């Protein structure tokens, strides 16, 4: 382990530590860490493994275009992964002053869609996909497309967005699951929590 540093164990103990010096513009001498040592717009490693070397657009497995029958039943498109500033991934939800800022997961939905579905600001809603259901609170915003709902990630229990997401159809090469573009339908929850009164 010490061979690359050129130090002996005694030297290291005396110095207390060692860090490799920062080298800038390494690529001018050694090239990039690709098989051809160049910037590869077409990925040669992917080509050798028998995959398309270029990032090409492919219609998602579930979408109003690729599965129009399913889209009649589940008209809205889920996207997830929008971040909030107070939490980092799933951390910080048990800190009361942070939780105070966002006590519930908020589903962003366009007011036009919300009006059609009879959803008001702060209502408990159920999001149902072909797989399962989850709960969230509605947050009406015109910053989102009328056919799309944005769901927050990393919440526990019935508010977990992974419930409605597909975990079977993965990317063939790297195996990551689909976290965006799934179909769902949204309706107001049959009961409303936290004493929020529903207007008739």
């Amino acid at each position, binding site marked *: 382990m010490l061979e690359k540093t050129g130090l002996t164990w005694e030297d290291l103990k005396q110095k207390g530590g060692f860090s490799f010096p920062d080298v800038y513009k390494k690529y001018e001498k050694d090239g990039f860490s690709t098989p051809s040592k160049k910037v590869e717009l077409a990925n040669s490693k992917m080509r050798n493994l028998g995959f398309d070397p270029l990032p090409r657009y492919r219609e998602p497995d579930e979408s109003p275009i690729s599965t129009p029958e399913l889209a009649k039943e589940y008209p809205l498109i889920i996207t997830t992964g929008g971040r909030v*500033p*107070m939490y980092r991934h799933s951390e910080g939800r048990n800190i*009361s*002053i*942070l*939780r*105070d*800022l966002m006590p519930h997961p908020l589903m962003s939905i366009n007011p036009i869609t919300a009006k059609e579905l009879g959803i008001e600001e702060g209502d408990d809603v159920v999001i149902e996909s072909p797989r399962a259901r989850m709960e969230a609170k509605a947050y*009406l*915003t*015109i*910053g989102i497309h009328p056919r799309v709902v944005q769901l927050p990630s990393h919440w526990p229990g019935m508010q977990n967005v992974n419930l409605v997401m597909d975990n079977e159809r993965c990317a063939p090469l790297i195996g990551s699951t689909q976290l965006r573009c799934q179909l769902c339908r949204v309706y107001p929850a049959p009961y409303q929590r936290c004493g929020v009164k529903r207007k008739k």
Partner: protein
Amino acid sequence: MNLMDKKMLIILDCCIGCHACEIACRQEHDLVYETYSKWCRVMTIKPRQVQNELHLDFFPTMCLHCDDPLCIRCCPVEAIIKREDRIVVVDNEKCNGCGLCVYACPHGAMFFNEVTKVAGKCNMCLERLEYGIEPSCVQHCIGGALRYVTQEDLEETTKGKHITSTGKICYASSKWRLVR
């Protein structure tokens, strides 16, 4: 330069809505959840359409340290005072917890602390200023929206911007005209 004579400058263009000032304030003054006090808050003005453009704004709110504070006028035991450096402070020893000032404040900056049972509000982190460091919200502001500056710096920074100010706090925005 004495820290006490500086002014708080809030540049609304720079606020990114991270709520760091809010958390910093609550940590600095031990405003746990049970106190129901938020001396510094960041209001989110939701996305809205203005002349075919979408706008989303954040608005840090705190005590304005008004020039003629209504909380001082209504306090029956004279627990709230305006210091010579124009900082309005609540004297915890004198406060009897009647809560009149909470209703008197037109900006919603006064809070009744449910743990200590006295009124509380932003005091510009007086202990920190006396110690020689700037307020906690200013130190932790990520976007540089909250600044604690001298009068000359303030005038230079806000040149050409819409401003509204009291003796101690100045809001500035290049996008919106501010009305108080």
